[in-house]
């Protein structure tokens, strides 16, 4: 390599010039950092590990289901696998995912601040996450738990074998990580916006993070007390959920779902925010209906607290309460639909570029819509009697969580990767991975809608032979999906060492984060920025030349 090329390589290397990455290279400087960007990286590595652990459990589940009697031949093992998959994916991947990685990194940049309001609490939240995760993983691997991620009493309190108390303790601890992050975000957004950044000049991603944080802060404590009561009952063999002393097992479900339904909005709202960033950037056009989209984020967060009973239609809940929850569940779908229409309005007559982030975002729109609509089928009382606890439910929430949220996470990762790492990833491979993921996803989960409709129950390790074709299709799709997930792991890592250096604004997007170098300095901004325009001030199409 010539001397000039070597010099260029060094300049392009993020470690060759001042940036948050070069600011201290010891392990201590990473493990004791209070820089939100470094904490985001710590989290990113952690949740990637959890994603592949939860994904491995899923792979074994799908492997088991390719023959009717179950390849693993053991119902207990299967039960432990789906519990492991659910617990890891919900609490250690989806709930943190975008907020703690992309959110931690981008939020202060987007509002023009030097850091979050409470940087040390931010670091504490990572350590709480790791501690909770370690406890949970130990419980899951040292014998496992077979209750499902929902831990219903009296199975979890009385009859289950396995490390239930240890597992719920791990989840309890990680819940405080969630609360700490949410608290930090809310206070930061209220208090640390740059001069000129009014609420209506904030990017939608921040409205989404704010809404997510409200849910994190208000719902997670109820999970904490629920798990505490569960642990009490399991340890002492008596408690408020015990029908033998007049307690109510349904009380567990009420308390659990009071958290867990809003939790699904914790999981999806950041994804909605990410898509609201990517679509305008790659259409070169202002977001359609900004105020509607902003307030819909808040509406989803608030109304999401009113609908939890729709998980309990056939559990013994009163018909009157079921009717109320069903109606409220229809209301909560409206703000999500409004967002979808606003994205379509943004795309309309835009100058659309099909880079990898955009492919993920477009896939999101289709898959999220399908997931959302099928949720409405389930919210209808009469239909739910037939569909509850079948693969229809499994397909519904995977369309939203995997088709939607995981796509959005990958989209966000690809969109902000140049900013975070200072590197460009190979474009064509990235687009191929996105398309492969869309294909693999649909092959995996569409057959599950049919399976559910035909009556295949969920959480069963074996099934009647007439369902085998659909199961085999689903498992084949899962294999393709696995490849599509592994591809970014390889080429993004490759880009860290061999990728071209990234400019400050590789996508020509609007937003304060793109005004900083890639990767940014530790202090983010040398001079506090002053904001004078809205977040999507793209030139109106037809009035000036869009950048190619």
């Amino acid at each position, binding site marked *: 390599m010539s001397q000039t090329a070597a010099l260029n390589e060094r300049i392009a290397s993020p470690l060759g010039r001042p940036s948050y990455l070069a600011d201290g290279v010891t392990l201590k400087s990473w493990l004791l950092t209070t820089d939100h960007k470094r904490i985001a990286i710590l989290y990113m590595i952690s949740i990637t590990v959890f994603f592949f652990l939860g994904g491995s459990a899923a792979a074994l589940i799908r492997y088991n289901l390719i023959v009717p009697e179950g390849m693993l031949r053991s119902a207990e093992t299967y039960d432990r696998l789906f519990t492991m998959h659910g617990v890891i994916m919900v609490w250690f991947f989806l709930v943190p995912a975008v907020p703690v990685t992309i959110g931690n990194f981008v939020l*202060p940049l987007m509002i023009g*601040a*030097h*850091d*979050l*309001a*409470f*940087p040390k609490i931010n670091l504490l939240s990572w350590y709480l996450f790791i501690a909770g995760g370690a406890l949970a993983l130990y419980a899951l691997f040292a014998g496992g738990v077979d209750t499902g991620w929902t831990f219903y009493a009296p199975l979890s309190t009385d009859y289950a074998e396995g490390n239930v108390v240890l597992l719920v303790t791990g989840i309890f601890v990680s819940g405080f990580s969630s*609360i700490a992050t949410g*608290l930090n975000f*809310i*206070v930061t957004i*209220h*208090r*640390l916006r740059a001069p000129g950044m009014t609420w209506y000049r904030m990017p939608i991603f921040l409205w989404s993070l704010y809404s997510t944080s409200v849910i994190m*802060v*208000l*719902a*997670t*404590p*109820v999970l*904490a*007390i*629920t798990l*505490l*009561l569960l642990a*009490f*009952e399991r340890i*002492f*063999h*008596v*408690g*408020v959920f015990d029908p*033998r*002393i*007049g*307690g*109510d097992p349904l*009380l567990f479900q*009420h*308390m659990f779902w*009071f958290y867990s339904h809003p939790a699904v909005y914790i999981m999806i709202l950041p994804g909605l925010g990410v898509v609201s960033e990517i679509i305008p950037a790659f259409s070169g056009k202002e977001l359609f209906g900004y105020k509607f989209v902003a307030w819909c984020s808040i509406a989803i967060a608030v109304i999401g607290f009113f609908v939890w009973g729709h998980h309990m239609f056939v559990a013994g809940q009163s018909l009157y309460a079921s009717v109320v929850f069903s109606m409220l569940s229809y209301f909560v779908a409206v703000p999500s639909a409004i967002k979808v229409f606003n994205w379509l309005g943004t795309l309309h007559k835009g100058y659309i570029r099909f880079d990898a982030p955009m492919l993920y975002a477009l896939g999101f729109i289709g898959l999220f819509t399908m997931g959302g609509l099928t949720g409405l089928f389930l919210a209808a009382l009469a239909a739910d009697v037939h569909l509850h606890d079948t693969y229809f439910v499994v397909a519904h929430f995977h369309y939203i969580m995997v088709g939607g949220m995981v796509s959005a996470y990958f989209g966000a990762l690809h969109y902000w990767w140049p900013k975070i790492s200072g590197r460009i990833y190979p474009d064509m491979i990235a687009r191929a991975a996105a398309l492969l993921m869309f294909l693999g996803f649909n092959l995996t989960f569409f057959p599950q809608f049919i399976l559910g409709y035909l009556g295949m129950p969920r959480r069963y390790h074996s099934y009647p032979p007439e369902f085998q074709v659909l199961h085999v299709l689903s498992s084949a799709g899962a294999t393709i999906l696995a490849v599509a997930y592994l591809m970014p792991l390889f080429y993004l890592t490759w880009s860290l060492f061999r990728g071209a250096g990234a400019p400050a604004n590789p996508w020509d997007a609007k937003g304060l984060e793109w005004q900083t170098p890639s990767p940014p300095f530790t*202090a983010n901004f040398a001079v506090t920025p002053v904001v004078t325009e809205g977040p999507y001030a793209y030139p109106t199409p037809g009035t000036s030349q869009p950048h190619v």
Partner: protein
Amino acid sequence: MSEEIAPHVHFQYANARHQAETAISGMWLFLATEALLFGGLLLAWVVSRHWQQSSFDAGGRETVLWIGTINLALLITSSFVYSTGLGSIEGGQPRRLIQCCWITAGIGLLFLLLKFYEWHIDLSEHLFPAGPFKLHGAEAGGARLFWTFYFVATGLHAAHMTAGIGLVLWVARQARRGAYSAAWHTPVEVVGLYWSFVDMVWIVLYPMIYLVGRGA
């Protein structure tokens, strides 16, 4: 004056007042999470009592009323004392603040000692909901529900009290080192918020534990 304030202002804040108000907002938000934590427990109380009202109340009659009532009066007083301490440092009197902190911590410690004694009484009377139980027959079920709630609620509250006492003692120590002044005393206010909240929780728990099933 500015040298007193400037060292405390962290780099992401515009000025000291901005930082102080942010810290107070942060504590209030944290207290909101605590309220929902205890709120879930309240729901468990309401629902449990709904299903087994007479036996739940029978369980409630076994609580040690005098200890609970004295503890209520103690906590109310401690909130008053700490607020007085906060007022003192706002008037630039760190010594009064330190005294108030010691008194507050002392009251808190007395609360805990009475609580431990009360638990001792409860356990020796076989009121722990698991195992051999004081009440029998039709009254036993709901009473066990009550006493489950009792131990979880008072245990959780005691844990929060312990943390609160630690924080108040920390404030006293910092004040002795001259960290606070009329110009800057944000941690004093923030700890006061937490302490008053723990007081509030006891105010709500008191009738639910000691007055339910009592009287007419």
